[in-house]
Every structure is written in C-alpha cells, then in structure tokens.
C-alpha cells in the first residue's frame, strides 16, 4: 500500500512526463500534433485498401469495423513495444535520481492512453460520417472497457519494461511478437471467422475480449456481454499482477544493470 501513497506523492511527475511525451513527440514537425490523428488515419487507409478493396472480405462498412479495433490495438502495441524502452531509455534518470520506478511505465501507458482517447474523437467523427449512429446505452460501457484495457496494458508494460533491462533482446523479439499478436487477435477480422477448434486459444488472448467489447459498443451498437467484460477484466488483472510482481522484483537492480 506504501507504493500507492508514494505514487500519489509523485503524481505531478507522472503528469508532467505524460505532458512532455505528448507535446514533445511531434515537436519540430510541420504538422505537429496533427500527426496524432493523421498517423492512424493513414494506417487505416492502407489496411482498408488491402482487406476491403483488394481482398473484398464483404464486411459492411469495413473501415469502421477495422478502425474501432485498430485504435485500441495501437494503444496496446504502444504499451508493449514502446514499453521496452521506457526504463532503458531513461538511463540518466534511473541511475541518478530516486523516484518510484513505477512512474516510468505508468506515465508511458498513460501517455499512450491519452493518445488513444484523442483518437476516439476521430472514431466518433467517422461513426458520425458513416451513418451507423450511436447507442447511448452502449456508450456508457465505453469507459469500463477503457479502464479494463488500461489495466491490461499497464501489466504488459511492467513486464516489457523491466525484463528488457536484463534481457535486451526482448526489444527486438517483441517487435515480431507484436506483429504476430495483431494477426492472432480479431482486429482485421471478426471472432466468428476463427475456426471453432482454435477459439479457446483466442480466448486466452487478453486482447480478444477487449476488441470484441469495443466493436460491440461502436460497430454493432449493442451493450457488450457481461461475460466478455468480466473475461477481459479477469485476464487484465492477472497480467497486471504478474507484471507488478516482476517489476517489483527486478526494479532494485535497474541502476546497476543500466
């Protein structure tokens, strides 16, 4: 419990790191902060050309189907691959100054999270343009899914950031793993296209129920099933626990290893 108090004392550090990250990210570029929106839109365009125009998957309004899953995926991906750098990239701070080490992964995930929330503005615009409309009752569940995903991403980031310090290869391994992980998660396709005999494997994937929930809310305009939400929350809490324990065990030796 001590850690919560300490993190609360250091809340300003978390916020200022998030601010610095969000503001500093596109500093110096011509379009600046606009890249936050432009980047996912361009990626959406590429995937849409490949999977809707060329492969013709027959999913109605595929761009929306894809986009509501892709934006949360970017958040997850950022926490995973970006997380590898969030301790080793801050060598000078870690080796020279004391602060609760948890601040680094937390602020990293928080910054990815805020980035996603900003992109949700674009999602709502696209939902509006597409004419699909919004189910207010379903939208109420959206913050719940956000929190659930935040828990999961934090756990992932705890693991990725701390293990990379001792095993630098992880950074490169995760580059490939994250790509495979995306294709093994129903981001580009629906869960119903997965052959039934493999579906239990997909259910072990913590991102599957989260993506499903987003899609239920924003694409199918239905309230997500309670079982899906609980499933996601359950996996998220497990990952966060493992992540925190790993991080807590390894953090004492960060300064020596860096």
């Amino acid at each position: 419990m001590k850690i919560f108090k300490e993190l609360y004392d250091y809340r300003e550090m978390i916020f200022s790191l998030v601010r610095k990250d969000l503001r500093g990210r596109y500093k110096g570029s011509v379009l600046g902060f606009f890249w936050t929106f432009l980047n996912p839109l361009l990626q959406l365009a590429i995937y849409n050309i490949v999977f809707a125009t060329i492969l013709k998957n027959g999913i109605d309004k595929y761009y929306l189907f894809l986009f509501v899953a892709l934006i949360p995926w970017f958040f997850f991906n950022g926490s995973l691959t970006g997380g590898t750098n969030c301790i080793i990239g801050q060598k000078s701070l870690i080796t020279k100054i004391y602060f609760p080490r948890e601040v680094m992964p937390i602020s990293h995930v928080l910054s990815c999270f805020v980035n996603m929330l900003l992109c949700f503005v674009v999602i709502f615009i696209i939902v509006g343009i597409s004419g699909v409309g919004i189910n207010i009752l379903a939208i109420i569940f959206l913050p719940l899914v956000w929190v659930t995903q935040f828990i999961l991403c934090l756990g992932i980031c705890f693991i990725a950031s701390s293990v990379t310090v001792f095993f630098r290869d992880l950074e490169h391994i995760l580059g490939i793993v994250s790509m495979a992980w995306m294709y093994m998660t129903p981001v580009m396709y629906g869960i119903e296209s997965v052959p039934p005999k493999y579906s239990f494997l997909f259910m072990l994937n913590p991102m599957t129920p989260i993506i499903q929930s987003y899609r239920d809310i924003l694409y199918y305009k239905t309230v997500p099933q309670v079982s899906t939400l609980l499933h996601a929350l359950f996996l998220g809490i497990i990952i966060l626990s493992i992540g925190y324990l790993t991080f807590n065990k390894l953090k004492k030796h960060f300064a020596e290893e860096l």
Partner: protein
Amino acid sequence: MNDIKSCNIESASDNAIEVRTVKKKFKVFFDKGQSLKEIVLFKNRNHYENRWVLKGISFTVKKGEAIGLIGENGCGKSTLLKLMTKIMYPDYGDICIKGRVSSLIELGAGFHPDMSGRENIYINASIFGLTRKEIDNRIQNIIDFSELEEFVDNPVRTYSSGMYMRLAFSVAINVDADVLLIDEILAVGDANFQAKCFNKMREIKSNGTTIAIVSHALNQVEQICDKAYWIKDGIIEEQGEPRTVIPKYMNWIMSKEDRIELKRNEELIEDKNEIIINDKNIESHQEIEELDQDELKEIRKTGQEVEYGNKNIEIVNYKLINLSNNQSSIKFSCEDSAKLEVEYVLNNEMVDEAMFSIAITRSDGVMCYTTNTLIDTGKNISLKKNGRIELFIEPLQLMQGEYIIDISLTKDYGPIYHCICNAIKLSVYNAKSDYGIFKPNHKWIIK
C-alpha cells in the same frame, strides 16, 4: 512479495539517517562475450567476479547535522550515496532515512531542450517529487535564484551551458527536503553563483535540513560539514570533525603519491643503469609531477608541512631571521626586515646546478609574492656538497596577517628536487593604523 525491507527509525530518536553495516557488491565481468560466436555459444557469459565496494559501513546522522564523505576515486563513497537515495539497494544491512529525501546527484534531470525554462522547471521539480502546488509556490524563488528572469520563457536549447546548469541547480536547491544528499555539484556557474549556492547550502543547513555531501572539494566539506567520514577500500577509515579527518586523509594521499614517485624513480634508475650510464643530465628524464593548484590549496588548508621531491638535493635546515633583533622568529612588524636561511646537502653528484624558489601566501590563499633565483639573477645557482642560501627581504612590506612560505629547489622548471609547502608560518603585525595588503615604500612631500 519481495517488497523493499521497510525500516524505521524510532520516532523518539533524533537520528535522521541510520546506516547499519551496509555492504554492497558489484559483478565485474572479465570478458563479456562480444562476437556473434561468443554470444551464440554463451561462452564466457558467466565469467565474473564479485567485488565488494562497501564492506560494512555504519554511521548515524542526527537531524540538522551535515556530514561529508571523502575518499579517493572508487573508494565507494558515491555508491554509498546512491544506496542512501535508494537508487540502488544494499546486499547486506540497511539504511533508514527519516523524512523527505532529496538528492542532488544529477542536475537538470528530464530537461527537454525544446521546452521553455519555466516548463522545464515544472518537469524537473516534479521528478524530485514536488506536487504542482508546491512548484507553484516555489517557482518565483527558483527563477530569482537562477537569475534567468528574462530568459525563462525561451526554450532551454537556446541557453548557454552555464545558464542551463544555473537553472538546474536552482530547481534542485529549492526542493525543501528533510534530508539532502549531494554529490559533487557545487562547482556550478561562475564564482559569483558558486558563492550564492554555497550560502544557500548554509541557509538550508541552518533551517534544520540534514545534509550528506560527497565531495573532492575538501574545503567545502570543512566549511559545511559537522562531521567527515573518510572511506577507504569500502570501510570507514577515519571519522570525526573535518578539521581532524581531512589532514589525515591529505597526508595519506600525499604519502601515497610519494610511494608512487619513489617507485617511478626506482624504475627510472634501473632504466638508467641499463641504457645511459654517463649522461650528466640524467635527472631531467625523471618526471615528477608538480602538485596542481587544487591540491596545493588543500595542503594550505591543513597548515601542515608537506614535502615532496626526489631529494637529489635535500633541504636540511631552514629558518627565518628577524633582522631587527637578529633572532630566528616568526613574528614580524611590517617594517621589519627578514632573512631566510636555507641549508642543503647534495645527495646526487650528477646534479650541479639548481634553482631556488620561494612563495609567500597569505593564510586565506592569496598569493602575495613568488620568485626564484633564475628570475632574479638570470642563472641557476651552482651547488656545493653542503651549501647555504640566504635571501634578504628588506623591509618585509607585508601588512598585518598570517603568511605561509613555501620553499623549493628545482631544476629550472623541470624536476623537483625538494619542495616544502607550509615551511614557515609567520605572523605580521602593524603598529600603525594604515591598512591594506601591501605597504609600498613611500614618503610624503607637502609643499
């Protein structure tokens, strides 16, 4: 759950820091596999040795006390400070600190070059654990202290390195903490700003903050700290008042340098025997490094006589004579004349000439006068087996104060035969009420 061992100081105790038999080891890898083959085969991966940098250190610091950790490079003092800040954790023993800790080990942590000075103050201060409100309260003090008012809204990348450090230091020093840990950072900015930092440190101390400093600047330790700990090879070699610990440490450093010189000389003599036997100028090959200015200053501080050199010529006796009564003395009036007598013996027949130098320094470190026989006479002095050098200073012309005289015999500006720092301490008094640092010969003519 492998939580950090929580340790507490009894609330009744007035100790702010307790360090209990702390030990710390590092793994030293002999050969970390670098080639692809080695990496693939994991060859030599685990070939390492444990090196204990701290071998059981214990001390306590009372609230409001300031301590200094001194020792040569690699003795473990910085590691100890890092353990105290909880950047690293001890392998054995524990460290307890009561109250909020702030460490000034890294200045300008987290500065972003593209952001303004003001924004960076917020980022930097937040890393020290300050909340937004606390920073809001301090920001004016920080800006005032840094003297960067007009630049504070410019991006930090446009700052000069001095401005950058000033800003960073201002943030660090304005973090109010119960315990302040400092690693060698008072050398920031120009002399003016340094003095300001120094005064601020004193102010912080007088406000009851407990301070631990790691420093090579022994005079800072002496001026700020109540206690000094000399750490040698991972244990506390000496502890006590800085006035007693620092001279011991200095002596040890000096004697260590002497040993190194001696060894070097022996090696050179061996070389000499092998290669060039009848070269008269052989001693010019012997390089004995002079002490640099900082070291000299430290020696001054201690006030103890310190000698070094290869002693091919050795100063065996020296005294200062007050010519007003022809007696050996260290008390002079500023109108008195003085004679310095130095006797030497020639230990190495190959040396035939040398230069004699003298330096007069006031006790606060102001160099008053230095000269040598080469400057004054244009040539070296030719040496006898046993010789005497006399220097007349008529009149002394120094004003009231304590002065220190260093004497040395060297070959031109090359190898040092024998140098004695702090050889003579003399005090000068002035019976009249004229005032200054130097009394030029003068007379008045009123027409």
